[in-house]
């Protein structure tokens, strides 16, 4: 029972997700299934970002970098054996002339993303949190400039097409569950707790020595791996890779999802991605137009983005900690040490969200 209680925050996320996926798989149309799969991949990415941003309190605008690195790496290894020597002639010969099996390709690509995250983290994590935030942006710009212009290897700003498409809704779900578990295990680990403590009071945490640097670096690296996984999933879901997909728009979308759900908890990440995915899909359909009786109704193109930015601002102003308010879902009938029952509404909050000056 205690195990169940301890794992409740994970189970409470995973079981409903699986339920929704099963329902869609059984009864949903192909287009709904596509939308859901894409949402699950975004969830993987959002959790990757959460592992770093949620636990450290440093928001990263640069995680698309790791996503892109892994997506391109898997494209190099698995895509278009015939065209590769021509379109990506600059690749090393053994990659250019061979096609690798999917799983090893995925794993090496994820590893590459993790290594890049670690290496860049070595520098970025030394900075104060605000400078680090901005510097993650630099990271993304560097990658964007390089991959957009490195034509012989990345095909520049053109789209690489012809990747094997193997990501089904169940694979996406499996990966989402996996990263939820990883994120949870991380945040209750010693390193995760240390980082969360530092988030609340950087000055005090810094006094405890260099461990802040290392705990940030670990989170950054781990989140780089997970973002890499998201990149691989994106690539093999779409079947195409294009650098334009790994830039500010997508970054904004994921950051918005995290903020709206609540950046400081895993449940917030899941709720945010789900909520925004549904909202976006509704608006996307409304932009295409739908008919009521005999009249065709549609809203102007671009309103989806406006609404999203609007919701995000409203959340920031009126409920800074997001929908979930920084809380995890907890076993509602848990018994505290002093014997009182803690209800869902009165979860013990280790951190008050309000800052004061």
């Amino acid at each position, binding site marked *: 029972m205690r195990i169940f209680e301890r794992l409740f925050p994970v189970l409470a996320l995973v079981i409903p997700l699986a339920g929704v996926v099963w329902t869609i798989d059984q009864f949903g149309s192909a287009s709904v299934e596509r939308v859901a799969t894409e949402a699950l991949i975004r969830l993987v990415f959002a959790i990757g970002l959460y592992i770093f941003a949620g636990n450290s309190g440093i928001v990263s605008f640069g995680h698309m970098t790791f996503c892109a690195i892994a997506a391109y790496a898997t494209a190099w290894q698995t895509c278009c054996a015939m065209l590769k020597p021509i379109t990506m002639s600059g690749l090393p010969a053994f990659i250019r002339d061979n096609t690798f099996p999917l799983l090893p390709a995925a794993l090496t690509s994820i590893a590459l993303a993790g290594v890049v995250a670690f290496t860049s983290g070595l520098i970025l994590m030394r900075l104060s949190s605000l400078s680090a935030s901005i510097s993650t942006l630099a990271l993304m710009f560097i990658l964007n400039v390089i991959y957009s212009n490195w034509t012989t290897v990345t095909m520049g700003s053109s789209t690489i097409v012809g990747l094997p498409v193997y990501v089904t809704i169940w694979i996406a779900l499996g990966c989402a569950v996996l990263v939820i578990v990883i994120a949870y295990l991380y945040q209750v680990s010693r390193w995760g707790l240390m980082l969360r403590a530092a988030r609340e009071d950087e000055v005090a945490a810094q006094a405890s020595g260099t461990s802040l640097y290392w705990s940030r670096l670990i989170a950054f690296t781990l989140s780089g791996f997970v973002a890499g996984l998201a990149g691989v999933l994106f690539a093999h879901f779409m079947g195409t890779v294009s650098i334009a997909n790994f830039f500010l728009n997508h970054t904004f979308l994921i950051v918005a999802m995290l903020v709206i759900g609540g950046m400081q908890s895993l449940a917030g990440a899941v709720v945010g991605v789900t909520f925004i995915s549904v909202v976006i899909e509704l608006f996307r359909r409304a932009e295409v137009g739908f008919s009521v009786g005999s009249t065709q109704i549609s809203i102007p193109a671009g309103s989806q983005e406006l609404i999203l930015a609007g919701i995000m601002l409203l959340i920031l102003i009126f409920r800074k900690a997001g929908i979930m308010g920084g809380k995890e879902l907890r076993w509602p009938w848990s018994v505290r040490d002093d014997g009182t029952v803690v209800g869902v509404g009165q979860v013990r909050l280790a951190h*008050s969200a*309000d800052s*004061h*000056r």
Partner: protein
Amino acid sequence: MLEVKQMVAGYGRLTALKGVDITVKKGEVVFVVGPNGAGKSTLLKTISGLMTPTGGEIRFQGERIDGRGPETLCRRGLALIPEGRHIFKTLTVQENLQVGAMIRKDSAEVRSDMEMVLDTFPILRERFKGVAGNLSGGEQQQLAIARSILQRPALLMIDEPSLGLAPLVIDQVYDSLRKLNETGLTLLIVEQSTGRIMELASRIYVLRNGKVVLEGDREELTDTSALDAAYFGFSSDAA
């Protein structure tokens, strides 16, 4: 001049002040002492308008002032030098003083006040065009006091004027505070240590855990044992 009644204030769920009464009369030098975390700085921040009290009332020269912002209150004659002095380090000494005099429109008098201040603190005249960040701790404290005087406040509040200063420098600072008081300036000073306050105080409050545990005139507290007892929280008849 200043009446604080049953004031409650705090940060989020933490209540730092739990119903505090303090009175300052014109011309007095009132000290508030207390150990770390007693709520002394919160008291001054709340009176000055940097924080909003959650209960009680504050009257300054007869008018309710709680809930008003600091930019309004300083125009009514209330000045605060916060803990750590907070001079503008990247501005010159002159510019610091200019910001201090900013709320005043009477430029001729500002000029004569400026001369007066520079006479009182000659070191500031010497460093007039220099960047304030290069001043020593004692000089910075002098600048902070000078800057606040240029506001022409009716009541000057100072948070730990002796913090981080050498004993000799503290002498100088207290000396200038005494002179200012002699010119009619009312002072409300917070200190952590009781050591130096007797020479200047007309009245003393001891604050502990957000409450006033002792108050009295200097004459009443000449026997410092009651003061010490209240300060350290020994169970005593004083509390």
